[in-house]
């Protein structure tokens, strides 16, 4: 009798479990085509229309938002404070990849991280993960890439088309004001340190060098653009790196940084400084090089050039 009861309950339990698991796949998710793109690795099945996106690859926040994909987390204050994103991240939470429980609580449909993240294995268990290597696709290709992944190719193309027009009209507007061969240096200050950037590290580099096609001084080309894309420079050597214009990224926390440089003869004797060609731009706006930021950057840049004349 005991044996019979045990067998019965076991059978019942199996049936119940089977019933349970068979209900699972009924919430079917449309999957992304997961196109093969250099620098992008997929872990798990990526949904085509994710509702909850936890994004750690902060360079791409603006790409997602531009394509109408809601982002429910951010990593840097720069994302939240960006004038380009407005209040779109108002309800988002700030997370790091180590906040396992908080990420799980978001119940994300997909997670985006930069390649080489330490917590990738844990994240993979929470949701499908897209791992992106920075700089494999350039700033415009990236929009096409993201568009392909989430089936928003039309939206991506539409933005690219209007961007081309925008660049063309900005160029013609600048044509009479500055020469095409003018050289630019993209830089910012942190405390005692001076950093210079190339054409793929944000801060306006993409806009000035790639979109508008201005040249970099020879030393910047040689030591930065052809190498790591950015570096910290000694103030002694600074004159070699500053072109006709300097695009200096400044915000409230870096306003007074490198004050002693700005008080020094080496800075005051720079041709760009003497000509008043130091363009101070909003770090919070120029930090990223996504479509939303670029749209505002190009206007701010043209205005800054005009103001400097």
């Amino acid at each position: 009798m005991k044996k019979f009861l045990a067998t019965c309950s076991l059978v019942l339990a199996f049936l119940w479990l089977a019933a349970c698991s068979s209900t699972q796949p009924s919430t079917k998710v449309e999957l992304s085509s997961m196109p093969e793109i250099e620098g992008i690795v997929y872990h798990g099945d990526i949904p085509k229309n994710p509702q909850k996106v936890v994004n750690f690859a902060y360079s791409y926040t603006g790409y997602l938002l531009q394509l109408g994909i809601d982002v429910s987390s951010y990593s840097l204050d720069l994302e939240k404070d960006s004038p380009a994103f407005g209040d779109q991240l108002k309800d988002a939470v700030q997370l790091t990849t180590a906040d396992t429980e908080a990420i799980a609580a978001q119940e994300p449909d997909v997670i985006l991280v930069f390649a080489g993240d330490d917590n990738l294995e844990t994240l993979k268990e929470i949701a499908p993960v897209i791992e992106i290597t920075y700089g494999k696709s350039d700033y415009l290709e990236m929009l096409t890439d993201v568009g392909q992944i989430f089936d928003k190719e039309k939206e991506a193309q539409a933005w690219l088309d209007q961007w081309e027009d925008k660049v063309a009209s900005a160029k013609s507007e600048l044509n009479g004001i500055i020469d095409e061969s003018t050289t630019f240096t993209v830089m910012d200050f942190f405390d005692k340190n001076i950093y210079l950037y190339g054409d793929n590290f944000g801060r306006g580099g993409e806009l000035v060098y790639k979109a508008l096609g201005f040249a970099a001084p020879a030393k910047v080309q040689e030591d930065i653009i052809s190498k790591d894309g950015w570096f910290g420079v000694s103030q002694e050597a600074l004159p070699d790196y500053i072109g006709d214009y300097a695009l200096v990224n400044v915000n409230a926390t870096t306003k007074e940084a490198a004050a002693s440089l700005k008080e020094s003869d080496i800075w005051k004797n720079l041709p760009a400084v003497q000509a008043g060609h130091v363009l101070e731009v909003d770090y919070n706006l120029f930090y990223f090089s996504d479509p939303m930021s670029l749209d505002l950057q190009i206007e701010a840049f043209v205005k800054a050039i005009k103001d400097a004349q």
Partner: protein
Amino acid sequence: MNQEETLLSRSTKPKQLWLVFFSICLLFLAGIYLSLRFGAISYSHNQLMEVLQEPMVQSAVQDVVVDLRLPRILAALLVGAAMAQAGAIMQGVTRNAIADPGLLGINAGAGLALILAFAIFGSLHYSQILLICLLGSFLAAILVFSLSYQAQKGYNQLRLILSGAMVASLFSALGQAITIYFDLSTAVIGWQAGGLVQVNWKMLAMIAPFIVLGLILAQLFAHQLTILSLNETVAKNLGQRTFLMTLLLLGIVLLQSAAAVALVGSLSFVGLIIPHFIRMFTGKNYRILLPLTAFAGATFLIWVDLICRSINPPVETPMSAVISIIGLPCFLWLIRKGDHL
């Protein structure tokens, strides 16, 4: 008592001492000369001499050598001297071979004050940063000292070390919390690890008086420190008012290292390696130990700064990294040598 006396007389080795002194002299002069010539840009001997003969004539070379390098070398000299000597005094006062000025809460106080200021004001001019660091160090040191003082029993070394360690870890914990809350990491770490990058004449003018005053006072009271470093009872029997003397000497440590920390942030090892190295030749006679330690510390930091500037030009290598790389093997060697640690 007897043992201490013989220790004093035995370990002063005059011949070796002169050898060390002249070696440091040579290194010091070579360090200054090379620091003026090399860095992100290198100048020839003639270019350098032209500028040095007429230092006030404006030129591209003058902009670098006189406006950037000279104050930086002087700052390295003063900061190195102050950090090394403050370490030596601290070890003498607490009779603890591994004591350093950090035990007075100086680094932690400066750090916390700076973090608070960044959190409140957002961005600060360097002159404000220096003042805030000085203020933070002084307040932290006063707190540590008042915690280690008991009304009836007076003050004792062990309590000082314990309360120092406690205040330092409390302050750095608070500092980290504020840093994370206000997302300040880049700004504060930048200042504290920056070393002597961007030191100019104005910063030097703010900091130098503290250090120079500290160095002079230290020399005046060096003999008292020798007595105090022996043992509390011995010092009292020799007629020293030990409490007053301790207070005064710690005040000197505070002057020197608060100024040094304000300018370059906390540099580990300098206050340990240099005094221990010099002590191998001078023994515990602080009248010789203190000036020689300051001299060696100055030379050491000039060379470290030279390496920072010229190892990977035009990029500046962080000073704390260079010191750790040079300092660790030196420190291990000193421990292996054994007899003075």
